[in-house]
């Protein structure tokens, strides 16, 4: 087998992708990659508010993926595919891009897309109100359910809509990707 890593490096650089991860994902990888994100951003002479927004969109996206894997496992659907994530941090002109993709059960994908579309239709004030309303709801006891605030927070920090796309993998699963520009 032959790998051309230089070609991969060039492909990533031409797409303005600065940091990229693909593989089994864990909290310690989230932390280490998060360090790299912050190091790169702090060298970039950017406003601290933008730096914090990029970092928090990264954290919310990746922790959503981890929570999803735990939730499926709690439903009796333990599958190594849910432990995998593809994450990249890059640039698009003067904006920063945080993108991630993971395997999602087909039963969940449409609802996730609908949630994102609904958030994309809200303005800043409505998102702020939605965040507050959701944060006052009693926490779910369901494993991996989280506070239900991650996507709202990502929407608040993203300029323009959160882009999402589904790629069918099988009858049971899709690869679900989201892209946020900050």
């Amino acid at each position, binding site marked *: 087998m032959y790998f051309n890593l230089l070609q991969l490096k060039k492909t990533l650089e031409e797409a303005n992708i600065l940091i990229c991860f693909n593989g089994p994902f864990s*909290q310690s990888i*989230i*932390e280490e990659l998060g360090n790299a994100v912050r190091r790169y951003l702090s060298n970039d002479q950017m406003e*601290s*508010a933008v730096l*914090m*927004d990029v*970092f*928090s969109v990264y*954290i*919310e996206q990746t*922790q959503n993926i*981890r929570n999803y894997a735990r939730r499926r496992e709690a439903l009796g659907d333990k599958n190594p595919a849910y432990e995998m994530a593809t994450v990249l941090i890059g640039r698009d002109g003067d904006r920063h891009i945080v993108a991630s993709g993971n395997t999602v059960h087909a039963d969940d994908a449409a609802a996730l897309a609908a949630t994102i579309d609904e958030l994309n239709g809200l303005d800043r004030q409505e998102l*702020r109100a939605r965040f*507050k309303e959701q*944060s*006052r709801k009693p*926490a779910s006891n369901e494993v991996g359910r*989280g*506070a239900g*605030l*991650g996507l*709202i*927070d990502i929407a608040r920090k993203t300029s323009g809509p959160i882009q999402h796309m589904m790629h069918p993998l099988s009858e049971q699963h899709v690869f679900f990707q989201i892209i946020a520009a900050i």
Partner: protein
Amino acid sequence: MNNYYVEPRKSSPEVNFDASTGVLRLTGESYPENTFDFYAPLLAWLQEFLDTTSLPVRLVLQLSYINTGTVKCLLDLFDLLEEAAGNGRNVGIAWYYDPANERALETGEEFAEDLKVPFELIGEKF
């Protein structure tokens, strides 16, 4: 009651609750993997402290970054304090933020909006 202490880690803050003074201090960043599991023992500890003592409680938050799960957990802590204040307890919350970090200030302001207990915003590096 005993003190409650948790060492800081990369994604979770130092927690230092001094039972003799009623000062509960959280310092660092907060985005642990299972945020609710991290905060549940602290919530239980605070509840017990409120039930078994009558000391004033001061919650000092020095958190430079919190994830959304932590927002939820802090609101649960605030609820306990609001309830205690309603029962006549002397309670206060201080939110420290680095003046260079406007997001930390905004987070503190959003917390302050819905609270009845005294909530100080303190712009000071920590």
